């Protein structure tokens, strides 16, 4: 029993973090927002990092890694507020196609030639599908409504919810960081506003929510990878915890910035709006809470003294 990542996993996540920090800062988000949202060079870069093929089996030209690695990287995508449909294509669609034995497109996906956001009955709007884009609260999301209803497969939903949760913890981390840095430099009444407990304690509460949401996400990734029967409930734990953490942190971070937090000028709103969008995607909080309450109270999940609860 060990809750640590391997060195390989940590190195992979760090290299993605560094790459995105170096190439995909807030100035890129602003440029994309002004210039039509997508830049093929970004996708090219992600492909060259091997990320489009992260979950594609090696014989189809990918790296053949698992959902834990994918979740770690999805969190990095959230931290960088990456708008390209990497997570939807490479971490949601790919494992679903592999599970269904539908292998035809995997090579093209790994090579970065194909993007494949998938709709689900619970989630009929998807980013970067074909068709004319709707205006989303998240300005960098090219949302389209799929003409035909999507799949109703719970595994697809679980993948989407898990990877949204992973992005949400990364988003929350980034927003907390922005708010803390601002609280250290903005002074009022002769001291940094971060010295006021009223702010400090709210930021600490965000830190608690974020720190505790993370392992729930890793646990869910591990459960979904293993395919155990309670995997769906683990995914719901992760989705609710990560949504709660990101929404709390978004609200707090804006408040900490004062009027600056209400401006387009401050970067924060990109992260806040992505959080808003992902909070409702792949089953909102009410939906996942219901799935948990059915499992716990409805008896589909074994509880009671004869069971452990790893």
């Amino acid at each position, binding site marked *: 029993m060990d809750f640590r990542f391997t060195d390989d996993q940590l190195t992979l996540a760090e290299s993605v973090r560094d790459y995105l920090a170096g190439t995909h800062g807030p100035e890129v988000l602003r440029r994309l927002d002004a210039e039509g949202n997508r830049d093929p060079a970004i996708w090219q870069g992600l492909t060259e990092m091997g990320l489009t093929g992260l979950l594609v089996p090696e014989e189809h030209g990918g790296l053949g890694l698992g959902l834990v690695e994918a979740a770690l990287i999805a969190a990095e995508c959230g931290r960088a507020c990456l708008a390209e449909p990497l997570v939807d294509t490479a971490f949601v669609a790919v494992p679903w196609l592999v599970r269904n034995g539908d292998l035809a497109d995997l090579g093209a996906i790994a090579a970065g030639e194909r993007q494949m956001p998938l709709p689900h009955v619970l989630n009929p709007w998807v980013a970067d599908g074909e068709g004319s884009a709707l205006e989303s609260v998240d300005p960098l999301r090219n949302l389209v409504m799929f003409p035909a209803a999507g799949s109703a497969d719970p595994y697809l939903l679980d993948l989407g919810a898990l990877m949204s949760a992973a992005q949400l913890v990364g988003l929350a981390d980034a927003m907390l960081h922005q708010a803390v840095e601002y609280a250290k430099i903005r002074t009022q009444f002769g001291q940094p506003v971060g010295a006021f407990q009223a702010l400090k304690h709210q930021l600490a509460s965000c830190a608690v929510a974020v720190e*505790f949401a993370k392992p729930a996400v890793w646990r869910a990734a591990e459960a979904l990878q293993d395919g155990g029967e309670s995997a769906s409930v683990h995914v719901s734990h992760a989705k609710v915890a990560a949504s709660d953490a990101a929404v709390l942190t978004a609200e707090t971070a804006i408040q900490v910035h004062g009027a600056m937090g209400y401006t387009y000028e401050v970067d924060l709103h990109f992260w806040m709006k992505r959080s808003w969008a992902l909070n409702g995607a792949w089953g909102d909080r009410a939906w996942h*809470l219901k799935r948990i309450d059915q499992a716990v109270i409805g008896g589909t999940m074994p509880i009671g003294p004869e069971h452990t609860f790893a």
Partner: protein
Amino acid sequence: MKLGFSAEEELFRQECAEWLQGQMAGEFRDIKGISTLTAKAERRKEWEQQLAAHKWSCIGWPSEWGGRDATLAQQVIFAEEYARAGVPGRVNHIGIELAGPTILAFGTEEQKQRFLPGIAAGQTIFCQGFSEPGAGSDLASVRTKGRLENGEWVVNGQKIWTSLAHISDWIFVVTRTEEGSKGPKGLTFLMMELDQPGIEVRGIKQINGDAEFNETFFTDARCAADSMIGGVGEGWKIAMGLLAFERGVSTLGQQMAFRNELDEIIAAAKETGAARNPLIRQRIAKAEIGLRLMRYGALRMLSNTDHSKIDGAALTYKIQWATWRRSLGELAMDVLGQAGELAEGADYEWPVLSNLFLYSRADTIYGGTNQIQRNLIAERGLGLPREPRGDA
């Protein structure tokens, strides 16, 4: 990440479960399921000795001192089976989890030999003398005085909130030994025998009717010069080292107890019909999530083998569980409705869930209040500017 247990570990689980359940069905069935800290104290001291006789009293300690050198996974398993079997809390948990590890880390060889066998054997029950009437959150402002006189420490002053002092044998106290010193400087950490004329213990009644904690008065109380852990003036360092042990493996056993509490609430909700109420269902689902988060957070904290480094998980753990449990108490009351307001006996004796509601009000206070935890998280974790510090 490796989240399951190995076959060997499962065998160990079986061994723990069989022994503990056997005890709770046999010789010690009269203490099974007790939820207050003080009930049947004498029997629970015998239970400490029974644990020791079968080498279960301190399995995480080194084997040369009566432990089993148990791995983290084994300690987790034992703690889980302990709670699952309905064994009541350890009356010597302060000795086993705080005093012992502190002596192991900072004591001299002679002190280890003097104290550890008694603690391991369940013969020496310890309590913790940190807080004073004027020094709660601001622990460094303690005023209880210690002075060396003819090869003995002589102590004068008062401690308060001393849990289980009335059934303990020894107390460790943080004393101010440097005249005129302030804050964390000039403090010394002493071990004192309670049964002596200079120490008086008076119970304090709590909101749940129990009297787990006490006032402890020191009037020319004495202990030998070498009953000091660390050096003169090093009391703060030792006290902080001791508090770091509080985040030990017992937290995982504590979670199994929490699991039992939540399961009991779910069962009650089904019985009273509250489980049909969507608001209650949602709160139960949230409680379930909170419990899971705690579980993973604790495993993550304990998986970090570098215990000198306080990581995000360790820093946030106390406030998370305390706040969770306090709302669990509120949920229990809403599930039970007015029936939860009725005591079981004439002497203010509470059923488990009502006691949970009352007792859990203390969870966000002892061991560092929620406010103090948030200060620590903000300052040490997030690097925000520091609070004013008393006289330090």
